[in-house]
């Protein structure tokens, strides 16, 4: 019986900014259809790990494999849909409509020279529909709410028809109602579209109720597996320190 290769395999990566070690001996795998949450304290290396997974940073040692190929030689990088941490201030007054932003997500698939064709336009329409932002397509980005903008960024990632969606703190600056709505949207993408999803959050309660697999990160990988493992006092202490008392809140 053949075992399907992992979509992403991380092998013993280490990363430091100068003398400041950020990640130590991190190894894990993500299979197709997984729904993975990465939790940990601020400064624990979550965003750095995501940036290594999407190729924005390179680990000093160790390796990241995508579909069994080293990331550095993996040509179809558009297959990794990336939703960076929101930098809404940067985009204030940027004259761009939702359609133009989602369309820009298709550009890497077209490469440097190819003009977008009908197939590309179908994929863009489909991405707008899946993220339920079709009705907003002529609106300017800075006229949208935080939750709507986040859907637009996901739609932009979907326009490239990725194999995996990687989101960095997607809930920052979004109100609670919009957060719940967005969690439901991600779950649907995972379950109905079969899309592999990895996201980072510091909201440990909500994340453990939503995802299938959890990775606990604080410089090293402290635990990985089913979400329930994170609720043990030992893991909480390792992640956030001795003084943290975990009060479970219903979602």
């Amino acid at each position, binding site marked *: 019986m053949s075992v399907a290769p992992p979509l992403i395999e991380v092998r013993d990566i280490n990363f430091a900014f100068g003398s400041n070690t950020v990640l130590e001996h991190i190894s894990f795998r993500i299979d197709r259809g997984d729904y993975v949450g990465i939790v940990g304290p601020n400064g624990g290396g979550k965003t750095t790990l995501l940036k290594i997974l999407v*190729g924005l940073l390179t680990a000093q040692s160790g390796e990241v494999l995508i579909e069994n190929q080293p990331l550095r030689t993996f040509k179809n990088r558009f297959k990794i849909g990336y939703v960076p941490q929101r930098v809404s201030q940067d*985009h204030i007054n940027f*004259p*761009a409509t939702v359609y133009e932003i989602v369309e820009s997500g298709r550009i890497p698939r077209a490469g440097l020279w190819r003009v977008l064709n009908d197939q590309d336009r179908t994929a863009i329409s489909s991405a707008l529909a899946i993220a339920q932002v079709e009705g907003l397509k002529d609106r300017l980005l800075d006229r949208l709410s935080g939750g709507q903008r986040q859907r637009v960024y996901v739609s932009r990632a979907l326009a490239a028809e990725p194999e995996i969606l990687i989101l960095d703190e997607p809930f920052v600056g979004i109100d609670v109602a919009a957060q719940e709505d967005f969690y439901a949207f991600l779950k649907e993408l995972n379950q109905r579209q079969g899309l592999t999803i990895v996201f980072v959050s510091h909201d440990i309660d909500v994340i453990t109720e939503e995802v299938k697999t959890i990775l606990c990160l604080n410089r090293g990988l402290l635990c990985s597996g089913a979400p329930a493992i994170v609720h043990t006092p030992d893991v909480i202490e390792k992640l956030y320190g001795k003084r943290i008392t975990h009060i479970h809140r219903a979602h």
Partner: protein
Amino acid sequence: MPMLEMFRYDFMIRALIAGAIIGVVAPMIGIFLVVRRYSLMADTLSHVSLVGVAAGVMFGFNPIVGALVTSTVAALGMERLRESRKLFGESILALFLSGGFAIAVVLLSFAHGLSVNIFTYLFGSITTVSTGDLWIIGSLGLLVIVPTVWLFKRFFLISFDEELARANGLPVTLLNLLLMILAAITVALSMRVVGILLVGALIVIPVLSATQFGQSFMKTALFSLLFSLAAVLAGLFASFLLDLPSGGAIVVICLMFFGLSLVINRNKK
């Protein structure tokens, strides 16, 4: 009619053709500089290009070619510094703007006594554009227009979200360098129309006027182009009819369009 009279002069026809080319090229690059918060880039490149003009004057080659070379080298240097993140973006601009101007002033002091009117380059002199100049402006204009139109959506993506473009495998460094080279060419060829001191205004103000209308990126680009083209042509007419310096007249009309855009859109947002 005095307006039609200007078409009887070859130098005015050449001026209108050169103005139209630059009126199209300037906002095409300007829109990317504005949305990347690099509006002062055009001014910086124009000040640096004075070094090339001074070198051209001293060593006897075409000052526009000198301006093109120095502004391109400066653009590449600024882009490398920006990517290295060793300095803030605006500090890089200040460094090159004042540094370039200082070098040019020193070079020009050596050229003292040469019979060249530096004011031609500082304030523009579109009515002295020769047929040879027109060929250079036309060729350089095409050199900017073709890749900008072709790569327009790539430039949009790296302007809106450089990190995403890089993560998704676009050659962002190459695109950034190309955009800076195109900006340098635009500055060099706009110099004859509005002059080194006003190039930045022609590249930036029509875009600022267009952004007041709160439209899509594509419509903003088209509006910028219309404002720029209208300002250049109206400025040349005004310059001919009222005997005004063409560069100043063009930029004043750009400012009038900006004021009008503000008034028309005062109730938006």
